[in-house]
């Protein structure tokens, strides 16, 4: 994949060939703070898993510019259909560490009631979808939400996120096709991080770029340096404005890199070289943006430490709050299957409660998650 990419900030933090987007000092600083907070959350999340305090974690390290820069181009009322590697979008939209950590612990205060694995968040209050593991399923749903907004004549855009692996799913192709046919106000964001677990991107597609796939579905495709948050924002803003103006969907390919293993259960040293990790380490999106901000007088080097400390103490408080809570009540297992429990579910709950009270439930051995 060698084709040209939009780039505002070169790898050394100097201005590159694409013109910088218009963003205020406050906006620039908000983006940076969110990126740094996301990095801290991910590092802490992985540690919690290693320490056996949560069952699983999956980090977005290296992809902060991609998902935060693109989501920053949305209005708060716009809808997001994200995948599992985009926690910064939630932080950007005002979700707190504490809310997220309750989910990771699957405790009684988890707003999704301990139903899903860690990092599969659901925050309707900020128009973010319930995250699903099966790859690609959110893509078509985003298209449908965008179609609905158009039918209702609401000025709302839907943005959907998926990986390079996700472009092989049936739902990617169907979603692109529907969006093209209905000119729906949907922005497709492919975070091409080079890998789908152990599968490199050239094992995923023979297209020269992911952006090239847009042409077949009758929409523009834009290839962007996904580790350059300003280039990402710029491309996303254009796509969002286009969608809102009734001009239809866009596919964005954000070229980035998964700086860690696929998840807490993956060992990426089995399939990636040290050299590759080092090469991409030098393209770290956080370091690059910091250099740009410092150069422009928007940020001072010393501010980093201060910010990191305040983020860390916030995280610490959130973890303590999450660890104070017990599991969700047993009966909650039978809720939300339907709006109302069926008679069969009532009967099953009764039987479990009785068995539990009699002490005849031992609780099966539940082991470690391997992936």
């Amino acid at each position, binding site marked *: 994949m060698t084709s040209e990419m939009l780039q505002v900030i070169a790898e050394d933090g100097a201005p590159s060939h694409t013109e910088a987007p218009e963003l205020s000092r406050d906006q620039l600083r908000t983006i940076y703070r969110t990126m740094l907070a996301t990095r801290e959350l991910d590092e802490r999340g992985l540690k919690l898993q290693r320490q056996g305090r949560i*069952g*699983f974690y999956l980090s977005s390290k290296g992809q902060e510019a991609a998902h935060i820069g693109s989501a920053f181009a949305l209005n708060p009322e716009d809808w997001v259909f994200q995948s599992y590697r985009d926690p910064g979008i939630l932080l950007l939209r005002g979700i707190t560490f504490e809310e997220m950590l309750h989910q990771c612990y*699957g*405790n009684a205060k*988890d707003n999704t009631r*301990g*139903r*899903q*694995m860690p990092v*599969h968040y659901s925050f309707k209050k900020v128009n973010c979808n319930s995250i*699903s*593991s*099966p*790859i*690609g399923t959110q893509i078509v749903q985003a298209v449908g939400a965008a179609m609905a907004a158009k039918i209702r004549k609401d000025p709302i855009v839907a943005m959907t996120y998926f990986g390079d*692996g*996700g472009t*092989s*799913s*049936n739902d990617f192709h169907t979603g692109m096709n529907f969006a093209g046919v209905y000119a729906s106000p949907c922005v497709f964001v492919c975070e091409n991080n080079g890998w*789908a*677990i*152990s*599968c490199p991107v050239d*094992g*995923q*597609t023979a297209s020269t770029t992911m952006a090239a796939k847009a042409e077949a579905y009758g929409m523009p495709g834009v290839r962007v340096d996904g580790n350059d948050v300003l280039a990402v924002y710029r491309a996303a803003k254009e796509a969002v404005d286009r969608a809102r103006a009734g001009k239809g969907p866009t596919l964005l390919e954000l070229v980035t890199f998964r700086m860690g293993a696929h998840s807490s*259960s*993956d060992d990426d040293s*089995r*399939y990636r070289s040290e050299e590759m990790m080092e090469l991409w380490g030098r393209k770290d999106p956080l370091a690059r943006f910091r250099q740009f901000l410092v150069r422009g007088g928007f940020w001072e080097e010393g501010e980093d430490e201060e910010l990191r400390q305040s983020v860390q103490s916030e995280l610490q408080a959130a973890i303590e709050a999450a660890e104070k809570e017990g*599991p*969700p009540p*047993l009966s*909650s*297992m*039978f809720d939300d*299957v339907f709006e109302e429990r*069926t008679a*069969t*579910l009532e009967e*099953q*709950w009764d039987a*479990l409660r009785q*068995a*539990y009270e*009699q*002490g*005849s*439930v*031992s*609780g*099966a*051995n*539940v*082991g*470690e*998650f*391997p*992936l």
Partner: protein
Amino acid sequence: MATMTLLQAINDGLRLEMGRDDRVVVLGEDVGLNGGVFRATQGLFEEFGGDRVMDTPLAESGIIGTAIGMALYGLVPVPEIQFSDFIYPAFDQIVSEAAKMRYRSGGEFTVPMTIRTPIGGGIRGGHYHSQSPEAYFAHTPGLKVVVPSTPEDAKGLLLASIRDPDPVLFMEPKAIYRNTKGEVPEGDFTVPLGKARIVREGTDATLVAWGAMVPVAEKAAEACAGDGVSVEVLDVRSIIPLDEETILESVKKTGRAVVVYEAPKSCGFGAEISAVIAEKAIEYLEGPIARVAGFDTPFPYTLEHMYLPDDGRVRQAIKDLMEF
């Protein structure tokens, strides 16, 4: 004989068959260099090369659809679906195509393909890494459905499945991938499809189970022995074709039947087994046929240990039945 885990036995079986028959190919996500996310295909890529061990793009319908095409052409594909929870994009290819090919072509075209896929809970995997969808597939004429529970059976049933002339869904209980060890014959052998295994003999009640519920049933039987109740444990091994004879013989002897399975209780395969017992052996029964199963809810995360049937619940079901 060699001591192996269930996972090692599967790997051993795959290696043996790929060495014996050059038509056998493996394809799926992460099955090559990475050796599969559970390492079931470890070393095969190095030994047999990329033409026979293929890392595929992330598309289950693509994996199964191309495997069907390979089978039609004369290969013997063994595709892997990384978790059975991700099999649904391939549902159409499995149910509408692979399963019906022989019938709709009057026997002209056949699909000798074995789909390997991990099933079941017990690994803190939440909704999408824990399901037991065997009943969906058992309800599809033309498809065989096999679930081993011991290392020896895993190898022997896998070899029988790969050599079977029809499509087989080979479901691997991932909870016991690594923690079940056992003696496995070295070299070639098969365990025939459609034959249940008597795990433990008993006279008062019959426990019917498959996959990761077999060790749970065994543990419950042990506890029941302490209660003075002699429990026979059957491992169904192959759901389709089902060994009705062994089940009925046992139930006729004991007069009591409890079916144990992880999937949601309603319409799980235990319902079919219960119906067979009711149809063909009701006059031998001392009490109702019982099912200890998952609940009719999606698979939960935090409360997984309360969702999965355990030896305590099974033991209670037997007690209730003895007191009926």
